[in-house]
């Protein structure tokens, strides 16, 4: 019980952190430093696909949780591994997006857009990475025979963090990728 409150507080404080980063991004996007051409560098389609991977990992983790509560350890392990795979795929996707941008000379130091983009998505990626690390650890412990009592709060707790990371991405993806394109469509 305490663990759930603890992780909710952590999520709360991290939400404030992302709020600061998002506000800086939005603020800069309204200055002349950001040109519409810069948003063209972003690959909306492939990032959308990778985002689906990330959002699915929330679903798979939720399945892991429910199976844990029911005591289905084998299914639990399966869903955990799937979560890891999906999360890793997202990171790889982000990595290829970064690599492509760097090739096109969009870097953290190249322009205001580069600065804000890489910082916001970078910190999100860092949080994904940290989450995957934790999920990897509890997966390993599950395989080692831990968590054989369905009263443990570990999965719920980690789940709250993991879902948070996804919700942040929903917001960030919407603001960074979707919104500029919407503008173009609606003129």
């Amino acid at each position, binding site marked *: 019980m305490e663990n759930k409150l603890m992780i909710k507080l952590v999520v709360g404080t991290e939400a404030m952190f992302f709020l*600061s980063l998002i506000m*800086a991004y939005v603020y800069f996007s309204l*200055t002349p430093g950001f040109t519409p051409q810069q948003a063209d560098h972003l690959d909306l389609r492939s990032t959308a696909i990778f985002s689906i991977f990330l959002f699915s990992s929330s679903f798979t983790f939720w399945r892991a949780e429910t199976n844990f509560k029911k005591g289905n350890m084998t299914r639990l392990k399966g869903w955990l591994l799937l979560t890891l795979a999906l999360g890793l795929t997202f990171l790889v996707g982000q990595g290829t997006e970064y690599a492509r941008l760097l090739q096109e000379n969009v870097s953290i130091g190249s322009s*205001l857009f*580069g600065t804000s983009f890489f*910082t916001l998505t970078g910190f999100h990626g860092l949080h994904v990475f940290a989450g995957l690390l934790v999920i990897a650890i509890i997966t390993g412990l599950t395989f080692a025979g831990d968590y054989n009592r369905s009263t443990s709060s570990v999965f719920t707790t980690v789940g709250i963090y993991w879902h948070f990371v996804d919700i942040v991405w929903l917001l960030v993806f919407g603001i960074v990728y979707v919104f500029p394109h919407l503008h173009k469509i609606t003129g």
Partner: protein
Amino acid sequence: MTDINLVPEPQESLPDLSVSNDQGILQWISSVDHKQIGILYLWLSVLFLVVAGSEILLVRLQLAIPNNHLLTPEVYNQLFTMHGTTMIFFVAMPAIFGFTTYFVPLMIGANDMAFPRLNAFSFWTTFFGGSLLYFSFIAGGAPDAGWFNYAPLNQYNYSSSPGIDYYCAGLLFAGIGTVTASVNFVVTILYYRVPSMSLKIMPLFVWMILINSFLVLAAFPSLNAALAMLLLDRQLHAHFFSAVGGGSAILWQHLFWLFGHPEVYIVILPIFGIFSEVFPVFSRKPIFGYSMVVGSGIAIALLAFGVWVHHMFATGLGNTVNGFFAASSLLIGVPTGVKIFNWLATMHGGAIRFSVSMLFAIAFLIEFTIGGLSGISFAIVPIDWQLTDTYYVVAHLHFVFIGGTLFGLLSGLFYWFPKMSGRVPDLRLSKWFFWLFVAGFNITFLVQHALGAMGMPRRVYTYPDLPGWGILNLISTIGAFLMAAAVGLLVYILIKALKKGVIATDDPWDANTLEWTTTSPPGLKNFDRIIPVKSARPFRDYKRPADADWKTNPADSITAKPNSHGK
């Protein structure tokens, strides 16, 4: 938390079972016991107090006469920057967290914090942050752009020494320690209270910590974001704060003060909590207006995020913006100041005992009023336009930080020292310390109000020989050395008490809350049994069953549960 029989603690080491009651250094640095961690925080605070104090003594020596050449501007700027940064992050906050982590579990009848290992992690991370900050002195130079480190001066092309990078890294680590500690406090307070201790009858110190912890969780991320962005600017050539790259110098100020203003409430709310314990005990009366004290604390926490621009009235944001934040800043002065009257009303009609703790509390009433009034003057925008960034601000901030925070910590120290150490400090010497410190403090800082009004800006390594500037600065310097002497005396008093002070009883002050029901110091396990808790003053109820609070003022306490153990 009751009559259950519990396994007694080992009085001697049991090597075969790997159980040791050794109290050597290895045990201390690996401890997860909240009391030991609390003491570690307090010693950290004392260490950095001496360091930051020495820094400012050098500064005051340089400022003692006009056109002085004792220190180069390069050295001076590092000293004043480190003084401010250290005092806030490595003296005030660790001291507050030290008392918090020591006494919150005791006051709520718990045997430790919710997450003991996280507690230790928080302390050591803070310690690491402080070490990292100070490492800068030997790694190319300490930060030298002031404790709030404005852009673009903090950018690499204006500050190429690594000091500012160490500032960022050190504070990031300290921030992680602070945030994790606050998470721990909230969970502990909400889940580990004795079941009969509802929020309505929780000790006010614990209330203030609860409110304060939310303030920390909401405010520190802004600082962390700013520090991260600055590191990216400096190391990876990002453009957050450099106008040349399209960034915004003002963005730094917004992010910093969104943290910085709540931060000042972070270092004063727990102090209000300490005083709300001290005044009732030493006046032999309950706190006047318990719910008002809690309510004003919550009001402050909420308003704290709506006032930050009052640090930026002179940045040209326009009169509409200025007007809004002037209103909010004036408003926040009300819940902050009203408590002074709560405490005075607590004393009124009481039976006041002048322990050293109470002396600091009484002095605080006046000193904090001075600091609060000078603070309110800044909410009056045109006055701010004259006095911001002058020695008047320096006077204001020291009256609230020292006259408020430090006096509160000292009051708490003299109140709780017998409980923590099992010893009583020498009363006569302690009173000498009080008078010497109060005298030194007022001598140092009262004149600084005048210096500011006379035109002396802050953060200047020297000043021209204008009429009155020299003598007032000299007076201020003399006061500073008096304060230093007093602090030296304090360290002597504490060490002497620890070595051969009179043994303290469990309840030397005839106090009201649960920490006084255990031994001085408490054993490793705080409580085997806990007295009934049916009001905000459970120990007093226990000692005076005929006049128990829950009998005389049932509206402010809970009624006895059917299966509570009575007498």
